[in-house]
Structures are given as structure tokens and as C-alpha cells.
């Protein structure tokens, strides 16, 4: 098994594009190493992207934020201005695993692991985040909701990697929130996740919203009907009920060791509502 740690995106892309056997990108390694140890994966080549400056930095760009794909959850948390602009994204990334895992886990890895239960992904999708991919033909941007196609299936072409995420500029009175349901208080994979990003006007009416749900379908869902259900409202009780119903209607979950179909559908509605209310509070205060 070969290990390479190139210091440029071009170098990483060349290694991956030229690989003959199975090649894997190593960011935080909190999924990759576990899968290797469990004999689920046995790659011929591992490309560690943490020595590439672009994957490791947080920068302001055009009024928004660019976050390297290999920035860790702990580093995100320690960035006060980013946290103020996108509290939901940061809290979602910080829910991935323990303190120890936070020291390693990245949003790039969380997305590319290809799990519908990934915590940071619904928050990124609700935020309208765009993934910047680097590949043999240069860079291209793809909305985060279009990166994952299904469990362990990504829209990446051979040799392509997720280099960074771009979080768009925030209008005034905007905020976001992410909630997940797990049986314990920590250390579990989301049974349901809900990310909501919204903007309110001076009168407290929701003028824009995005709602995303995790672990309720084969991929993380962007649910425009749920957003429509609250746009134009003050998130009063009827709007909350509409949101809950729209979120539940979008779910196409499975029964598994972590939860039942019935449970996931019901809790998806509850979490979408609760996350929206938190985002609303934050937006009013921002």
C-alpha cells in the first residue's frame, strides 16, 4: 500500500488520475482508517491531502467564506467570525464524533465518505455551499447537494478531489442551524439530521430559506417544499406544521439498526421545525 502526501492540488490530482489500482484520498482519516482496519477497503494508494495549503485554510472570499476540505472540526470551531456567520454549519461539523475525532475529521471527508447520515452535509446544503473540485481538467464548482449520488457514490470523476467549500455571502438577518437525532448524547451516527438556513426581514418574516434532511433517504436531501412552507411566514404554528409535514413528505428512509422508517419520518419533521426555530432566533439576533 503506497502512501503519498503531495503539497499541491496538481500533485494530488496527478497521483489519483494516474493510479492503476484502488486509490483513496486521506483527509482526517476517521472513516478511511476504520474501513481499512475492518477489511472493507484495501486501497493500493493513499493520497494524503493535508499538506496542500488550499485544503487546510479558511479565507474570506467575495464576502463569503472558503473552507479547505481538510480543515478539521476543531479548527472550524476555533474560528469566531466563521462561527458567527454560519453557526449551523459549524455546529454540524462539530457533531462528527468525539473531541478526539474533531481533532481530525473534516467536512471534505464527511462529504466524500458518501454516507447519507453525514452530519455536516445537510448543514452545507442548507447553507447553499458549493464544493470546488480539482481534477485533471482543472477546477469546477458543484453545489454540495449534487456531489453525493447515493450511498458511497459520488459525482467525482477519476482523479478529482474536493478541494474546498464556498459558503456564500450572508445577507442581514440570516442564520442557520443543524440538529440531529441520536439515541445517546454523543458518539452516534445521525438517525435523522436536519439543516435549516433562513433570512428574515425587519418584521420577522422569512424571506428566504433552505431545508436539508440527512439519513432519511439514499442521499442527503434538499427539500424545497419544506423551505416554501415557511417562506413568507413568521414561523408561527401553522407554518411550523406545514414545514413538519413537508419535511416528512420528502423522507424515503429505510429500517435499519439505527432506526425505523416510521421513527425517521416523524423525527425528521420534528427536527426540521426545531432547527428552523433556532435559525430564526439566531437570524433575528444577527
Amino acid at each position, binding site marked *: 500500500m503506497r502512501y503519498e502526501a503531495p503539497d499541491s492540488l496538481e500533485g494530488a490530482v496527478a497521483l489519483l488520475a494516474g493510479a492503476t489500482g484502488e486509490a483513496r484520498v486521506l483527509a482526517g482519516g476517521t472513516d478511511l482508517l476504520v474501513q481499512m482496519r*475492518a477489511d472493507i477497503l484495501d486501497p493500493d494508494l493513499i493520497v494524503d491531502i493535508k499538506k496542500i495549503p488550499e485544503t487546510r485554510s479558511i479565507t474570506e472570499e467575495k464576502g463569503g467564506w472558503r473552507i479547505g476540505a481538510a480543515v478539521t472540526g476543531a479548527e472550524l470551531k476555533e474560528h469566531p467570525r466563521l462561527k458567527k456567520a454560519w453557526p449551523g454549519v459549524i455546529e454540524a461539523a462539530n457533531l462528527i464524533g468525539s473531541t478526539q475525532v474533531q481533532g481530525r475529521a473534516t467536512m471534505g471527508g464527511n462529504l466524500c465518505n458518501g454516507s447519507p447520515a453525514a452530519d455536516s452535509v445537510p448543514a452545507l446544503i442548507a447553507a447553499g455551499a458549493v464544493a470546488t473540485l480539482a481534477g485533471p481538467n482543472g477546477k469546477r464548482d458543484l453545489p454540495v447537494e449534487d456531489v453525493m449520488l447515493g450511498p458511497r457514490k459520488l459525482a467525482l470523476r477519476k482523479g478529482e478531489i474536493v478541494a474546498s467549500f464556498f459558503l456564500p455571502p450572508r445577507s442581514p438577518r440570516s442564520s442557520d442551524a443543524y440538529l440531529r437525532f441520536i*439515541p445517546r448524547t*454523543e*458518539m*452516534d451516527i445521525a438517525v435523522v439530521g436536519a439543516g435549516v438556513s433562513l433570512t428574515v426581514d425587519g418584521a420577522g418574516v422569512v424571506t428566504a430559506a433552505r431545508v436539508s434532511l440527512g439519513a432519511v433517504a439514499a442521499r442527503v436531501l434538499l427539500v424545497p417544499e419544506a423551505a416554501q412552507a415557511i417562506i413568507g411566514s413568521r414561523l408561527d404554528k401553522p407554518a411550523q406544521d406545514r414545514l413538519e409535514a413537508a419535511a416528512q413528505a420528502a423522507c424515503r428512509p429505510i429500517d435499519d439498526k439505527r*432506526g425505523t422508517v*416510521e*421513527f425517521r419520518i416523524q*423525527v425528521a419533521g420534528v427536527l426540521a421545525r426545531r432547527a428552523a426555530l433556532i435559525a430564526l432566533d439566531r437570524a433575528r439576533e444577527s
Partner: protein
Amino acid sequence: MAETNGSPNGTNGQHAVGTRTVRPDGMDKVTGRARFGADYNLPGQLIGRVLRSPHPHARIVAIDASRAEALPGVKAVVTRDDFPDQPSEFIPAGEMMMNYKDVVRNVMAREKALYEGHAVAAVAATTTAIARKALRLIDVKYEVLPHVIDVVQAMAPDAPLLHDDLFTVGMEPKPEKPSNIAKRVEIKVGDVEAGFARADIIVEREFKTAPVHQGYIEPHAALATVAEDGTTEVWTTTQGHFIVRAHCARLLGLDIGKVRVTATEIGGGFGGKTVVYLEPLAIALSKKAKRPVKMVMSREEVFKASGPTSGATVRVKMGATKDGKFVAGFAELKYQAGAFQGSPVQPGTMCAYAPYDIDNVHVIGYDVVSNRPKVAAYRAPGAPISEYAVESVVDEIAKKLGIDPIQLRMMNAAREGTKAAYGPKFGPIGLEETLNSIKKTEHWNTPLRKWQGRGVASGFWFNIGGETCVALTVNEDGTVSLMAGTPDIGGLRASLAAVAADELGVPYDKVRPIIGDTGSLGFNFLTGGSRSAFSGSMAIVEAAKNIKADLIARACKLWEAKPDQVEWKDGAVRPLGALAEKVKPMTVADFAKVAGKTGGPIAGLGRINAQGAGPSFGTHLVDLEVDPETGRVTILRYTVAQDAGKALHPAYVEGQYQGGAVQGIGWALNEEYVYGDDGKLQNAGFLDYRMPVASDVPMIDTVLVEVANPRHPYGVRGVGETPIVPPLGAIANAMENATGIRFTELPMSPPKVLKALKDKGLNKV
């Protein structure tokens, strides 16, 4: 607090017993120096790995290991052919029984693989990578058979049969056909039908519990080396190295005296490390390879191939008069044994009604095999399941009769003189004291809000004694070496050192306790049954008695006195009467200086088969809150009251109460083995086998009740197991109090709770 019976520590009158000393092995454990199972290595060692069955039930048609054996770096492969078959013979394993015919088959599958993860072959190679590769080269031809996982399904007449020679024992008339029901057990006192006829109220419920794993953080690990003449050394993480020695000698046809087993530090056991898994394989591999072999299980292997405890189906029917007197108790218990017979249904049967004084009791238990890993002991094996069911019904009776649940338990509580349904008459016991202690807590009297609930439940465990051997040696400078033969799993050394210090009148920090290997002491039964501090301290008193008798004899010689002119008192041999004018008292340290001149080394052996283990009762109180929209349960507050008899080391006794309570919280709320329709375990890891983490639980308050056990020199009772008995019932009762719903299935995980709330239209804030 009970009085300390021991002699004062030295002449300043201080005791070590009953104080919160720093454990003697603590320094090694906070610095990373302590060596646990996987921390031992030998020069030239090989790495052993196990090939495990991917099928829950399959006939093993053929095993071809030739390609693995040919792989460079592979030094040995063993299969069923390397372990001679064993006749059917039952032997005690902790508090349970096992049969060598089954042990040899569990260690290495023989005719059939009986569960996913069942060992089929093992290899030893120069590196882990080569060993892993070798496993892939072993060709096992399976004939896959239909499997059965659930206990009730396994009892059905048309269920797939695991063993075609298994005929139910305890059934009249004797069955003519084999089945998966290994055994029917029964206890019966009085006349339950007459009791129910007298009852004003009868409550009957059926309960279901999931199998749960002990969840020790340290995986099984063993290192073995076998010389050409068969001399064998083993280092292993175990609750009983003498038991490991016995099993390995038996399975491999070795003389017991040729096998020396050293217990490493042990990273948790809870009953799960009372049996052998890796040790016989490592020995067999080492014997073939002529090199040391080290084997360590992965976490997945621990879940799939070491024993959890039973899941069960339990039916309980209780009758009471309208003023709250229990008049009849019936229960039927069906316990999963895993792939081989030997579930803890017998103790489950005996414990079910043990906390109560009831004239008419009838409990029937079934021991049922299915295609799961063979169960192992788990902290009060069998008791949490049956007592959970009874405590739930007791709570329901209290509610229906409008009697305070503590009051109802008090009215029916077993006390000194009560004849337990399982046989004996209780001596002094502390159930009432624990109930009273709980009632007096501030916790019991604090108000609750909506969606919060409070639950109480009591619990019982027998505790055991057994064969124990310890040695005390007085060193040249007056310090004391203490050797025990039961692994220290949670502070044993501290408790034993305190007893030795007080008995010999030396300071606590002058006693150095170690755990001796199997060649250093007489046979010791294992650390289990809450016996190690109870029996070990009795043996130390015995060893110290021998030393004191010797010192008195030496004093008589030195002082030219008669035995009636001297006595042992307050840590010294003291002259009496006129002699006191002539000579000064001599302490252990004084004798140490003149040991050579007075007869040589000073040492004492304590050899006992400890009797008189006192049962320990406990009562737990829990507050919780339910999120009606998600079914999530949060434990808000928790108090444990339990009778320790005498707490040798109060902090480690509290630790037992707290740890047991939190294991019980896990059992009640989230822990379970999840199987797919394919008979494979789906959650063989700490990610999805959800043991409580630090943020899941509150502080666990403790009340140390001390009703001295008259049959122990210090009044000690075992304390380790009882704490896991009450939580299941207490939490179920609190759930009922919070929601009005009686949950009868464990774990009470969010999907189940939410569904129950939804069915009642309660799933809204």
C-alpha cells in the same frame, strides 16, 4: 456505620480498613506503566489470528489449510483436528455451569459452526499482515443450514435444531425428540393457585429483554509459549488464571503442574472473562510452531465471539391483597443460552422473588440454545432480567392499590429470618435499610415536572465465597508482601492491603500486594460472584492469624515465657503481668529484625474455602425525562443505596454501585444485539452497540448501608454485582411515571418509546 472489628493499625490506633486509601497499583495505572493483556510480548513471538464462520449455522464439510500453511511466514495452523474431543462433563464457571464437550466446540468449531464469528481455524505467523493473508487462504467448505436467533422461535417444535443430541433435562416425561430447550428448572414453595385465589388484585405481564454485552474496554488477549517438553506459560487477561489453567490443561491434555498462567492487569471483565477463548488456541499454535504466540481480539471479535448475557422472554404474575400483602408470585423465564446450553436461567429463577417474603412462589425457567455466541456470566448473571420483570409488576401493584412503592416494598421485604423462595433462611440483611435510606434522601422528596418521571426498584444477589489462597510475608525490614490469587479488577489490592495492615499492625503503605501466578499459590477460584474482597480478606485474616501465632511462639522463646504470659494486642506481641516489667512489646517490625535468630522467615498462608457469603440487597432511585416528540430519554438524577455489610474501601464500594447503575442504564435504554434476517450481528462495535458515554449520565449518588455479615470477620458482603440488578426496573418504573405507559420490552430505545407514545396520541409537547 458498623464498627470495625479488626485490630488497630499499629499502636496509634489507626485503621486502614474503612478508609479511602490510595490503591497500591494506582501509580502504574495513571502513568501507563501497568501491563494489561495486550501489553505483554516475548522475544520471537508470532502473531495468532482466528478464522471465523461467516454463517450463523453451517455444517463444516471440510477445511483445507494447505495454501495457508505454504505461505512464507506462516508457522502453524490449527483446526478442530488439534483439539481432542471431550466427554460431557459439567463444571462450575463463575456462577454458571459449563460442559467440556461444549467448551472444546466453542473454542474451535467441530461438526458445525453455530454462530457468526464461531472460530473455525487459527494461524500463527511472523507478522499480523501475513497472519491476515493466511486466513484468506484457508478453504472451508460449509453446508449452510437454517438458523434461529430468537428464544421463542428456537423453542418452537419445527425450529432449526442446533444439537441433535440435546434432550431437555428436567421435563417429565423425558422427551423422545431432541430440541433447542436444554433444561427446564423450577422452584416452588407453597401453593400459588391458592395464593392467587386469596388475592384481591392480580397483575400479569410479559417482558422481553435483549442480549447485552459486558462491554469491557480491554479486548481478550493472550500470550502463550510452549517448550518442547510441554512446559507451558501463559499470560492472559482473565478473571481467573487458575480456571484458565484448568481449562487449558484439560482441552490440550497437559499436566496442570506443567502449565503456569499469569493474570495480566485486567481491563474489565464483569463476568465475561471467566471462560477461555484465545488461550487454548495460543497454546496449540505455540506447541506446533515452537515459538511464543500472541493473540488479541478485535472489538468486532469481542462482540461476535465472546459471550454476552441472555436475552429473554419473561412472564410474571403476582397477586396481592388489597392492603398490599403479596400472596402469590409466578414467573416463567425463557433465557437464551447462545449456541451451547448454560444460560443463567437458574440464578434468574432463584433471584426473581428473593427480595420479598411471599408464601407462595412458583418459578419455571428454560435454558434455550440458538445461533448466537454462547452467553458468559455478566454481573449477577440472570438476576437483572427476572428481577426487572418482578419489580415492574410490583410497581404496577403499588399504583393500582394506591400504595407508595417504597412502602409496598417495605411491607413485603425479606428480612432476617425470612425463608427465601429459593431455599435458605436469611440472616441479617439490609433490604429494609436500603428502602429507608432512599426514602430519607432529598432526591426522593424533590418535585418533578411534566414528562419527568421517578422510579424505584430493589435488587438482590446471593454472592459467593469459595476456594481462596493468599500468602503474607514479613520482609527483613518489617514491610509486608501480600500475594493473592484472584485478579484485581477494581481495587482489590487496596482492600486486601488494608486488612493485612490492620491485622498485622503495620502501616497501610508498608504492605505491597501482588497477584501471584498459578505456580505461586494454591488453587484460587476466580474473581467473580462478588467474592474476591470477601473471600480474600477472610483468607488474609487466616494468614495473619498464622503469623501472629508464630510471633507469639517466638516471643515466648525470646522472653522465656509461657504462652499465657503474652498476648497479641494492638499490633504487637505484649508481655502480661510481671513479664511486662521486664520486656517491651514487640511489633512485626521488631520481629523482622530478629527473624533469623528466632526461627527464620516469617510468613503465613491463608487457605480457605470461604463460606458464609452474605447476600447484598440494594434499592435504586432514578429521575428521568422523556422527549415526547422523539422518544429520547434523559437520566436526570440517580441514587443507589446498597448494603455492603462493611465497606473495606468505601470509595471502591461506591465505584461498584456507580458503575453497576450506569451499566444498568445502558441495558435499560440503548444496549442490544441487533441481528439481521441473515442471522448476522449488525452492530459489532462501540459505534452502534451504544454503551453510556460520560454525557449520557448524571452523577450517581450513593448511600453505603452497612448491616454486618456475621459470618465474616469484618462483616463484609460482596458488593460488585447487586448494583446492576435494580436499574432496569427502576428506569421502567420511572418511564411509566413519566408517560403513563408500562414499557415491557428492553431496551427502551427512542423508536420504541416514540411508537408507544404515538399509539396513545401522546407524541406532542
